[in-house]
């Protein structure tokens, strides 16, 4: 089924796709950020990808553009997963938000924003979700040190005497 979906996708939305392949049973499409929202809208309307599973990013500090934003979708009718990959640069890590299409996008985009600083254009609520208000930096970026501490209240130091 996944191979059939891949074939159909290549026929119908070919111009938007930079690369298309099948990896471990998942259809993988590589897109440019401008094509993301339009492609997802068509995936949902025409190919039955009605469930937005997950969004995350991968940090490749040595590569340019630096961040790879990875979306996963599932079709409850075809039982197929599709993965969309887009690349965004570190200076302007912005992709379009999917909150207009999927309710689940809100929390997942908030998490990705917390962890990688990816900005989801159109998501009205990018408050911290796993982190807290006032946290500095994005912990899952490779240049954020693992041992970095940001206490909300100062540590107590033992009183002399």
């Amino acid at each position, binding site marked *: 089924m996944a191979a059939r979906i891949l074939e159909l996708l290549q026929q119908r939305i070919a111009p938007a796709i930079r690369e298309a392949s099948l990896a471990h049973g998942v259809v993988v499409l590589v897109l440019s950020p401008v094509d993301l929202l339009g492609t997802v809208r068509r995936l949902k309307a025409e190919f039955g990808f009605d469930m937005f599973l997950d969004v995350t990013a991968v940090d490749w500090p040595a590569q340019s553009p630096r961040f790879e934003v990875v979306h996963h979708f599932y079709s409850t009718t075809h039982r197929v997963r599709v993965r969309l990959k887009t690349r965004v640069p570190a200076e302007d890590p912005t992709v379009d938000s999917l909150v207009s299409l999927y*309710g689940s996008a809100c929390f997942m985009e908030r*998490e990705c924003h917390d962890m990688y600083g990816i900005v989801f254009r159109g998501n009205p609520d990018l408050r911290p979700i796993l982190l807290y*208000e006032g946290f500095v930096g994005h912990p*899952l970026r490779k240049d954020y040190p693992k041992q970095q501490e940001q206490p909300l209240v100062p540590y107590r130091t033992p009183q002399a005497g």
Partner: protein
Amino acid sequence: MSPPFDAKPANPVRLAFEATPRDDSVIVNIGPSHPATHGTIQVIAELDGEKIRQVDVHCGYLHRGFEKECEAHTWHNLIPYVDRLNYCSGLINNFAYCEAVEKLMGVQITPRCRYLRTLLSEYSRIADHLTCIAASLMELGAMTAFLYLVMIRDYVYEHLADLTGARVTYTYGRIGGLARDLPKNWLTRLDEILVKYEDFVGRIHGLMDRNRIFIDRTRNVGVISAVDAVNWGFTGPVLRSTGVPRDLRKDTPYLAYDALDFEVPVGINGDNYDRYYVRMREMDESVYMIRQLMDMLPPGPINVDDRRCVLPEKHLVYSEIESLINHFKLIMDGPQVPAGDVYSAQEAPNGELGFYLVSAGDGTPHKVHVRSPSFVHMGGLKRLLEGYQLADIIPTFGSINMIGGECDR
């Protein structure tokens, strides 16, 4: 880099709505540490009398940098961490993670391992559902039901401790196999526990199913339609309670599920009562599956014969240099996983548990991302709470079975 300390620490949470939005409404803060919720979560509710106008759900109080920590350890070393995601069913986390790494490495596990993992997954599912139902019934005042269910759960935990050495955090899965084979007479005891399970779960049905108080608190409370549930990314029993028969074990069979005969129970209304009942029926299906698996369990080795991931036997490590080096390299450098990425999902008790792994081709992962069902469910929780009573937060939240370890990672 850290922010300067003010005289008064800033509020770690920013409200989604104004402090006093309307004259006749009150803002009530519930949590993050509340005796009636089993999970560290904060619900800020705007109330009109007892009715909830809108809520703002905050999670993250159990965030411990799981994904960051994973990037600093070898693929093997992560197995104890994934136990602690959903600590009610650590085995399923183990197996889901191992399966993802095995896909990336192109490892085919042995038939015995496949069947054993399936059996233990179903056994874990029973323990997880028992915990969820017991806790949510107790929050509604059903102490007897709680004690019955937790008693069975403890039989299961002790039985699993006999196999793995731990009650909750098992660390039993291995990349390419399992830690050890079943001890003697383990299956006999399993059979005894299943008989006890049927006795006690029968009593729960008798106590709860037609109980007026229980029905009043759960029927038509926290209702969600099938379309909404899919839109909000709900999976597992929460989605199935709305009538969508989506179950990864049936839809995209993994492990040995395609060889098993079982049903996918679904609800009608998508309310708290249906979520309770779907879980009860799923446990019965799990028992049915375990009974089939006990007869089907093939003999043979539990680990694949692949030196890239499976540790050599101890007596060989002590007697020949190749195995010693192999052992050393696997422990110090970790299994060398080919570069690439994989998304692999299993049907965990709460829904789709997915691991998105990225390897740069060495012994430590470049990235480990967990698609945790609890986190996604928290995103849609406000849909289940708004419009109902303040007191309904407790049963609705209980029926979602949010697990902090998995939600906040």
